[in-house]
């Protein structure tokens, strides 16, 4: 297992109840999508924030990735809703 930093934004942050976490990654968690499903099993706050998996956007080390992207050596993983800037 290794440690990764998670950061959350917007209503994902609000529903989880904090802006960041540091978690141990089980060996079975290999992709962004695996991580989302893993987090949903950690508690109701995560389950509520990540209920609609397809809506959740993911960034590895500050670059957008698809849900099937292998986590590889990413150190900072961000989870957030679709963006509404501009």
């Amino acid at each position, binding site marked *: 297992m290794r440690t990764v930093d998670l950061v959350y934004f917007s209503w994902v942050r609000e529903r989880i109840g904090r802006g960041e976490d540091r978690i141990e990654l089980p060996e079975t968690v290999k992709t962004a999508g695996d991580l989302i499903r893993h987090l949903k099993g950690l508690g109701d706050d995560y389950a509520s924030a990540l209920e609609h998996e397809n809506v959740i956007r993911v960034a590895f080390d500050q*670059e957008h990735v698809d849900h099937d992207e292998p986590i590889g050596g990413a150190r900072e993983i*961000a989870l*957030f809703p*679709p*963006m509404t*800037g*501009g």
Partner: protein
Amino acid sequence: MAGIAASLTVRVQAEVFDTAAEISLLSAGRNDIGAVVSFSGLCRDEGGTLEALELEHYPGMAEAEIRRICAEAIRRFDLQGVTAIHRYGKIAPGAPIVLVVAASSHRQAAFDGASFIMDFLKTGAPFWKKEHRVDGGKGDWVSAKDADDSARDRWRQR
């Protein structure tokens, strides 16, 4: 690409920016630029119901992503310079949120470049708007619009 390298300025800041000054700065000291197009995005009051927008951003990635989008626009449209500024924090109706200035030899590239940057920025730069309502009601996070995805995807089909 022209002999002079394209200039790229990207800023993510809480402070208000001076649109006219940014437009002047982009072309200052250069005689090769023939067209400058600017886009300013302002906070609407939504029929008087909105007290302010609060913009959350992902520090670091917000600037990096805007920089990636602008660099792609410079390559694709052969732009001579781009300035992109995006604000975060609480923004009142009437105040500016975002500025994109694109410079090129001829007008079409500048129009297209500014439009391309905005279409990708809206869907890919990590910012989120939350509404604060005049009546004190609990504000909602603004929902992403399918139309914004469609506007972005048009560029991928060209």
